[in-house]
């Protein structure tokens, strides 16, 4: 176990280091650090590509810093790295490219710590809820920098808002699990989206406006473009180096799992099999983006990093392909350009529904992907872009529908 822990810390550490180093190299350290500071006070609701706001270097550096916060938070609570915590660190880093900053994540983490105290539970029990809950970071940034209030009042309001959100996340997150029974991987996406509906309602009732923005990096930064293939290659090499000849066998064993929450592939199978799965899943996403003619912007890179993280905690080659196919079919049926950033994000993030394909077959997976497409395009408007895991929200709603139907059908047929 200690060997696995050491290996994982090296892998995650190198990943975060890659973000930081690539960030400093992309445009030089000066612009990267100046841009990083600018991002801390920038609006961050969907869809704000930090690479467009402050340059690709600053965006990648910010992602590395936010990923480091996640790693630090785990160490603080003495939680070892594993499938779910890998997913949590990777999603924090990935969304550090388009929405998460140190300033907007910390109040939410504090709120979740407070929730643990109120519930009489050790804070370690809610670590994952806190890390995934940083999805609501844009709400904290909005309260701090977009309300027009005097700075001190806005700052106090943002801290209070973040802590309040964190306080509510455990209760809602646990309730939401039962809605989809673990068949969507982005449970906190559903939870945060639900909570953000109320936040958006309160803000708009108080006279605030929440127009969605669309700020996307349209350059071709070489570091952003090649980060995922480099990371995937590193994971595959590490998988074979650690596998002692059993890597492929373990990778195939991972493919047999449904991926339903909570499927810690490292615990259920092995670290080498999981690392190979992460590398291959990342490459599938990356090759799809490039083949269809898409650009690796901040959100697309974030989506690919998230896919790789969750390939340790639910996503396999076998279960992601049907949902991606269903979403792709939907883009073609409804006439959306499949190479557009919008379509690409939906197709990459719809893989949160992979457990449905893993458990109930590719047909159900394709239906899930198709339905997810029609939902994802609408849900961001409902919460004003304040919940970063918008696709998670849409996927959660989709899974709740499908699971309810399947459960009713199965229970109706029991003698």
């Amino acid at each position, binding site marked *: 176990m200690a060997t696995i822990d050491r290996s994982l810390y090296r892998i995650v550490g190198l990943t975060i280091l890659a973000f930081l180093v690539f960030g400093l190299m992309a445009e030089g350290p000066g612009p990267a650090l100046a841009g990083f500071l600018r991002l801390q006070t920038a609006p961050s609701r969907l869809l704000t590509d930090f690479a467009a706001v402050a340059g690709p270097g600053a965006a990648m550096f910010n992602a590395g810093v936010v990923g480091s916060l996640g790693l630090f938070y785990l160490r603080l609570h003495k939680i070892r790295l594993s499938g779910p*915590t890998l997913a949590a660190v990777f999603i924090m880093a990935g969304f550090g490219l388009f929405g998460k900053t140190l300033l907007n994540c910390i109040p939410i983490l504090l709120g979740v710590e407070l929730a643990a105290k109120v519930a009489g*539970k050790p804070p*370690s029990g*809610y670590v994952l809820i806190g890390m995934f809950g940083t999805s609501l970071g844009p709400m904290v940034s909005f309260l701090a920098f977009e309300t027009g209030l005097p700075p001190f009042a806005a700052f106090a309001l943002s801290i209070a808002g973040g802590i309040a959100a964190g306080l509510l996340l455990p209760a809602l997150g*646990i309730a939401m699990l039962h809605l989809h*029974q*673990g068949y969507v991987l982005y449970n906190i996406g559903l939870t945060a989206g639900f909570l953000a509906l109320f936040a958006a309602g309160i803000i708009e009732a108080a006279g605030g406006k929440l127009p969605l923005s669309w700020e996307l990096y349209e350059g071709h930064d070489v570091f952003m473009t090649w980060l995922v293939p480099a990371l995937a290659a590193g994971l595959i090499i590490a998988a074979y180096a650690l596998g002692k000849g059993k890597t492929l066998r373990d990778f195939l064993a991972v493919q047999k799992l449904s991926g*339903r929450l*909570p499927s810690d592939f490292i615990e259920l199978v092995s670290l080498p099999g999981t690392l190979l799965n992460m590398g291959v899943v990342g490459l599938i996403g990356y090759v799809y983006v490039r083949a269809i003619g898409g650009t690796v912007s901040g959100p697309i890179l974030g989506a690919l990093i998230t896919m790789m993280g969750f390939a340790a905690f639910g996503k396999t080659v076998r279960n992601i392909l049907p949902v991606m196919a269903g979403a792709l079919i939907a883009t073609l049926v409804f006439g959306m350009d499949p190479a557009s950033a919008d379509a690409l994000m939906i197709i990459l993030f719809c893989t949160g529904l992979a457990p449905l394909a893993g458990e109930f077959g590719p047909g159900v997976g394709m239906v899930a992907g198709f339905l997810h497409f029609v939902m994802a395009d609408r849900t961001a408007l409902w919460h004003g872009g304040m919940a970063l895991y918008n696709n998670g929200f849409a996927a959660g709603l989709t899974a709740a529908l499908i699971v309810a139907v399947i*459960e009713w059908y199965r229970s109706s047929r029991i003698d």
Partner: protein
Amino acid sequence: MKHKDVIVHLISEVSRYILEGDPGKMVISLHREADGIHLCVLDDRARSEGEMEAVARSLNASSRPELAGYYGTMAGHDLLGQARLNLVGWQIKHAEVERTPEGGAMLNLWIGGEAFDDSKFTMPKGKNGSG
């Protein structure tokens, strides 16, 4: 009884596992002390050595506080799909799995909080703490 809702869900998940095997008999017994419970669930279904080991491994899953407090709440609650004994394993002190004289399986689970006193139970010494 403290935390009865937690106990109900753990019993529910273990019962679901037993019932998935379509047994002819299932017996559940519970012995309670001040801050702990010994739960015993047995059936009459024959199992292979591999299956017995897999059950013991799942119920003695290593302590995962980050999972127990969150995903562990799915135990005995979300019944679509197969029973998942590791959800139980994260939340208990220790488990022993043995064969009954009739050829079935007996699952002994020890559940408790911080003040759990293993001297009050028949739990094997040195096993307090799960995993």
